[in-house]
């Protein structure tokens, strides 16, 4: 395998793995947060506004870890910095 193929294969495989592994943690965390918030609303329906607002802010923070993984996967596929390097060095 030459260098360009190696970069392409590893980028594609690793970006898939990034999304697959990186979405496990946020999914579990968000599920737990939503379950807790729903039971809290069921116990105290008067505080639903505060709970919902805190839930959304917290969800966004949890989700940002998944978003980091997504951004890295997108960079690996569409804007790979090693791609141009491999192409210029493969031509020589």
């Amino acid at each position, binding site marked *: 395998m030459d260098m360009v193929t190696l970069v392409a294969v590893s980028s594609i495989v690793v970006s898939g793995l990034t999304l697959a592994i990186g979405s496990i943690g946020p999914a579990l965390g968000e599920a737990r947060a939503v379950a807790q918030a729903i039971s809290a609303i069921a116990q105290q329906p008067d505080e639903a506004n*505060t709970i919902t*607002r805190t839930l*959304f*802010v*917290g969800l*966004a*923070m949890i*989700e*940002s870890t998944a*978003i*980091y993984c*997504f*951004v890295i996967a*997108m960079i690996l596929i*569409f*804007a790979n910095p090693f791609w141009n390097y491999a192409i210029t060095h493969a031509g020589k």
Partner: protein
Amino acid sequence: MTISPDSVIYFYLGPFPVNATLLFTWIVMGVLVLSSWLVTRTISSDLPISPWQNFLEITVSAIQRQIKEVSNQEARHYIPFIGTLFLFVLTSNVLSVFPGFSPPTGSFSTTVALAICVFIAVPIFGVASKGWSAYLQAYIKPTFIMLPFNIIGEISRTLALAVRLYGNMMSGTVIVAILLGVVPLFFPVVMHVLGLLTGVIQAYIFSILAIVYIASASKSAQRNNRQSTTE
């Protein structure tokens, strides 16, 4: 497929390339300025007010109430900055319903610029409300050892603020673009609606986090024990 509207260049203004991000940012600014100028031109304090003035008053008072609830402080100092951030991000996210409009918040340079505004605003508001010494003492708050971690936290939350908004908006655009190639008929519309919801929530979260950061830096002493903020 383009990952960022930065790479679409429409024309050159002298030596400066005007890309899609700049152009759509100007459009959003124009929409905001023009609509508020048109509404406040015929503003009145008498009882029969125009529907648009009513709409603006509802918007401003809703932002004011949210700031007051989150920060436990007077909203008067914060509403120009936070309200501008919220309205700009919200407008640029919602305007993406129009075909051909790529939201400027889907470009990393815009979100980094907005996050740097928050990064600079935190010490400005903090120093203005507490003074230099009290603000700087917050960095060595538990012990002196925590100083580098406090500084790292300050920088990393700014980066997180930028990447969060950029990732959410860019993912909406990319998902619709991918689905247009796979199932072009009906399903992209559903994802677009989901993207709109995400855009509104992200605008809300961006401004809420900005006010949380600013409020935690500028909290005065007697309110210190009333609310412990996240991060």
